[in-house]
């Protein structure tokens, strides 16, 4: 297999707070191939956004600290990159769309102004050429009347429009990787659908790889090629979308899939996973999911399971499948 576009190896991140050390990520592994849309799914507070931000080294330090591992982007370790090199990568090779379109744009400047700045920062073009690129990009995200939108202030646009502006802005430098941190969470369902279709269409056409973060398995199923499931700062299962939805191995993934309400099955109440996501200051030993797991047995509470391949293109970190003791 060719060298992956992005390879996160054994990444650990801790936050040093007054209440104690939060182990936000522990030995996380993730690879993204060129042209692939990779999903990252998990509950609130399990470390998805920390993961996303760490790729661009946007973790505030202090309190956050990357305590181990490496993030290889085309073979180059981002964690060791000089800040000057880092700035070349940010927004140009790797760019990021955030969760809240309401606050992702500076309220005191026009949309056009902000879009042009990013282009001028990374490409050697003048302002009028930058403006042409902006209009092109806005057309590609199906923005009606792009020339007029450029002259508008963020508060004059709706949430969906703003998120499309953000997508256009982040793709304007043709990055290799787009990190989308719950880009549709703040939007209502119909707008969410539109934005996802536009995003899907556009990234496949340009050939950008995407790390798509969401807590919505439906969205992941619609958009992604492969998906990693995260629980309490660890990745518990990675597989192609088809495999994961057809045959989930990890009890947590199984629980998540059962918790999706279904229209065609008659069910009185929703299945839920008992308990809540543990606080990461003192995470449970062994498998972090074991206190909530219905299938736990002897090794779960003291041996940390490792990711291993249970089936082709399907990795899981669970003792149920034998080899995890590593």
């Amino acid at each position, binding site marked *: 297999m060719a060298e992956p576009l992005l390879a996160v190896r054994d990444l650990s991140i801790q936050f040093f707070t007054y209440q104690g050390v939060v182990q936000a990520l522990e030995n996380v592994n993730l690879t993204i191939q060129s042209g692939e849309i990779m999903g990252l799914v998990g509950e609130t507070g399990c470390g998805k956004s920390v993961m996303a931000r760490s790729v661009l080294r946007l973790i505030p330090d202090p309190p956050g600290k990357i305590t181990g591992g490496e993030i290889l982007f085309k073979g180059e370790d981002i964690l060791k990159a000089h800040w000057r090199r880092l700035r070349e990568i*940010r927004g140009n090779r790797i760019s990021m769309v955030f969760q809240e379109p309401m606050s992702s744009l500076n309220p005191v400047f026009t949309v056009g102004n902000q879009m042009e700045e990013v282009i001028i920062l990374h490409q050697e073009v003048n302002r009028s050429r930058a403006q042409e690129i902006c209009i092109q990009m806005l057309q590609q995200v199906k923005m009606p009347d792009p020339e007029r939108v450029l002259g508008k202030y963020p508060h004059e646009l709706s949430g969906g429009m703003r998120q499309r502006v953000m997508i256009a802005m982040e793709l304007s430098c043709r990055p290799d990787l787009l990190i989308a941190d719950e880009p549709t969470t703040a939007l209502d369902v119909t707008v969410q659908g539109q934005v996802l279709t536009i995003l899907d269409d556009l990234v496949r056409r340009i050939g950008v790889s995407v790390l798509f973060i969401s807590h919505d398995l439906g969205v992941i199923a619609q958009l992604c090629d492969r998906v990693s499931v995260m629980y309490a700062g660890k990745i518990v299962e990675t597989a192609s979308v088809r495999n994961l939805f057809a045959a989930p191995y990890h009890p947590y993934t199984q629980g998540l899939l059962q918790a999706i309400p279904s229209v065609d099955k008659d069910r009185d109440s929703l299945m839920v996973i008992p308990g809540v996501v543990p606080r990461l200051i003192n995470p449970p030993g062994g498998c972090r999911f074991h206190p909530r797991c219905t299938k736990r047995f002897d090794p779960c509470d003291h041996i940390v399971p490792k990711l291993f391949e249970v089936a082709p293109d399907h990795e899981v970190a669970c003792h149920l499948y034998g080899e995890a003791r590593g």
Partner: protein
Amino acid sequence: MWTEFRKEHAWQIKEFFFTLKLLRRNPSAVAGFVIIVLMVLMALSASFLSPYDPIRISLKDRLSPPALTHLFGTDELGRDILSRIMYGSRISLRIGVLVILIAGGMGSVIGAISGYLGQKIDNLIMRVMDVILSFPPLVLAMALAAALGPSLNNAILAVAFVMIPKFARMVRGEALAVKEKQFITAARASGAKSLWIVLHHILPNCFSSVIILATLILGETILIAASLSFIGLGAQPPTPEWGAMVSVGRKFLMDQWWYATFPGLFILITVIGFNIFGDALRDILDPRIRR
């Protein structure tokens, strides 16, 4: 063209007129605004409205009391006090505006950098600002003006220096709030430099508070500058500066009351004008107590 502009910016236009309406309803805002406008008009029209040359000496008219020929009387060299007050308004306004520009500009940048970078740099900058603030502004300005040498420009520099921490502290507080906003992270994620983020994203978002603080401080600035001139560290004779006029006039206060009284009255009115306007502006533009 105009109708299109009106349609495109309907919201801003509405807000603007709403603000105007609130201002009109607020009596102290109106009073302050009228005083400021009159001050500016007086400064602009001094050269053709003033009845006499402000520095022409006419010893035969010295110390004449207010009368129709000299409305506010004359000073010990026979110069018309009304004319000198009119020209003096130019100097006071110039001091006010220059000080606000220098102190507001430098203070805002310092505060924004401090708030955005945080940590050690923030601590260092803010402790330096605390040291400046720990002196009474007038005393520190006096010491600086004395060290620089008595002249109007040095007085402006001295007062500006004293005012920097006020802006720096306020902008720092705003910057701390603004830097948590998503668009700052987004800007960093698109590879913007720290300096660019400070100047382009943080400062413009603090601007409305800076304007309000500037109006509030203008009065104080004029007062301190007048005080410096009063003790001889500011404008030098024969410049018709209000503080300097009060200073000389106080020797004659017992017998020629008009000499020190009128310039003093104008300092008072101007300072009050800027202060009440600044107060009202702050209240009206604060979205929490608006409406």
